[in-house]
């Protein structure tokens, strides 16, 4: 393999890896607040893409994307309020099954609203054949958009968690729910907020990536599986590790085309998921001790 081709694969890997990381961070936000895996996470990404495409018919592109993120964020809040918030002391398993139900519901609703057609936003700058030459590597400008916007979102999110009172309260709630309540923090509000944040960040990812990957009513599920793999690979709950793990999965997938038929690409993530669950369930960046303290 010549070095140029090598870098081309790396770039492709990073693009997909970024999206996986964004989905994984969405998983982590809700996991940290509630201890559950929200299986509707992929649906947030789909909704972000679909809504952006629809809104872009009447609105300028940046406004359409912001609008899509806002709509998806509201949907995230509605899901929590309708299905989770009013439960009194629900078990983790029960909540997880609810999120599976919600994901089916959202998918079917999307099918009803948008039909089966495959959609995409236009490339933000240039067209699908535009490319920027960096050294000897050609990169689509959309790749830079995906990586750039996601990076900004991740940095903004970590600033939110570290430097704002609301962000600190969410971390407090994740660290010790009862103690947070004793400080006057409403745990239920924090859960609603976590659904909004992870819906919002999922929608951002969905909107920026859909010019490359296209979007359809059921495109959330495979992304949820990849994102879940990445979240587990990095160590569930750890968002910085999710970025690293996302890159690992993205790059592994892109190089797999070199050795395996393209149809086997999906096998990589599932195999990796099983492997990590067998040999190191705490994730490559997580500590086993920490994992033992978690609920499941």
């Amino acid at each position: 393999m010549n070095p140029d081709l090598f870098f081309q694969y790396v770039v492709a890997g990073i693009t997909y890896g970024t999206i996986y990381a964004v989905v994984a961070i969405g998983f982590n936000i809700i996991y940290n607040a509630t201890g559950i895996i929200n299986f509707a996470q992929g649906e947030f990404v789909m909704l972000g893409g679909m809504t952006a495409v629809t809104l872009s018919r009447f609105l300028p592109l940046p406004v359409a994307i912001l609008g899509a993120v806002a709509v998806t964020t509201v949907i995230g809040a509605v899901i929590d309020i309708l299905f989770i918030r009013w439960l009194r002391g629900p078990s983790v398993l029960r909540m997880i099954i609810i999120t599976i139900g919600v994901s089916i519901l959202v998918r079917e609703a999307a099918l009803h609203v948008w039909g089966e057609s495959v959609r995409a936003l236009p490339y933000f700058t240039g067209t699908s054949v535009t490319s920027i030459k960096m050294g000897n590597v050609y990169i689509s400008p959309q790749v830079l958009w995906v990586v750039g916007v996601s990076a900004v979102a991740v940095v903004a999110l970590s600033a939110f968690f570290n430097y704002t009172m609301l962000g600190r309260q969410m971390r407090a709630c994740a660290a010790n729910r009862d103690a947070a309540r004793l400080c006057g923090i409403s745990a239920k509000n924090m859960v609603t907020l976590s659904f909004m944040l992870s819906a919002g960040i999922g929608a951002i990812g969905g909107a920026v990536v859909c010019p490359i990957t296209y979007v359809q009513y059921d495109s959330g599920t495979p992304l949820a599986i990849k994102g879940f793999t990445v979240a587990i690979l990095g160590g569930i709950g750890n968002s910085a590790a999710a970025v690293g793990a996302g890159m690992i999965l993205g790059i592994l997938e892109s190089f797999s085309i070199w050795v395996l038929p393209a149809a086997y690409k999906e096998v990589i993530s599932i195999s990796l998921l099983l492997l990590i669950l067998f040999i190191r369930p705490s994730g490559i960046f997580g500590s086993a001790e920490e994992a033992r303290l978690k609920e499941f």
Partner: protein
Amino acid sequence: MLRVKNLEAGYGPLKVLRKVSLHIGPGEIVTVIGANGAGKTTLLKTLSGLLSARGGEILFEKKDIRRLPAERIVFLGCSLVPEGRQLFAPLTVRENLILGASVQYRRKRQGEVKEDLERVFALFPRLKERETQLAGTLSGGEQQMLAIGRALLSRPRMLFLDEPSMGLAPRMVREIFVHIARLRKEFGLTILLVEQNARGALGVADRGYVLETGRMVLQGPSEELLSNQDVQRAYLGRSPEGDA
């Protein structure tokens, strides 16, 4: 200030508190002593709203708070320092303290937080030294100070302390009891102190109650309880140093 009448509480089918009554006047330090499993922690969890009561009344300043959630009770001015500190271990000492002031933000009085931080640092200079350290890395005594400091940041008028001396070195135990007396003097707090360490608790409290298997079996001024033969036999006898 706080009046509890015939309180009943428990977990699932398990009944822990049976018709518990007590009262605390403003500015008093009152202690509830009892052995492991007597229901001391359950009592405080119920009073602070973490556990919902099955029956009875909890009046805080004549207002019935029995059905209020924990976050609302802190807002009204009752703060619990829970058993085992319950700090936000992965957050820094400073962050833990500021989170304690969450209700101050809800009261739109975040302007007072800075001043309160200084008061807590003046009370516990050790916390100032460790300001940027993660709470989980502190020693037991420092963690207890931080747990108390965090509760103080909510500007309570009434403080519930759940076994503050538990798991501490004997020297630290004495220090904690000294601090509890200072809390009343310097912060004007009314304090309900739940303890297994009967000697230490009665030493600092004005009055005491004895809780046995979910029932209040005895009450009276601290000196009276300290000289009571049943109390001496059951709670003071085997532990001359006061560490049960």
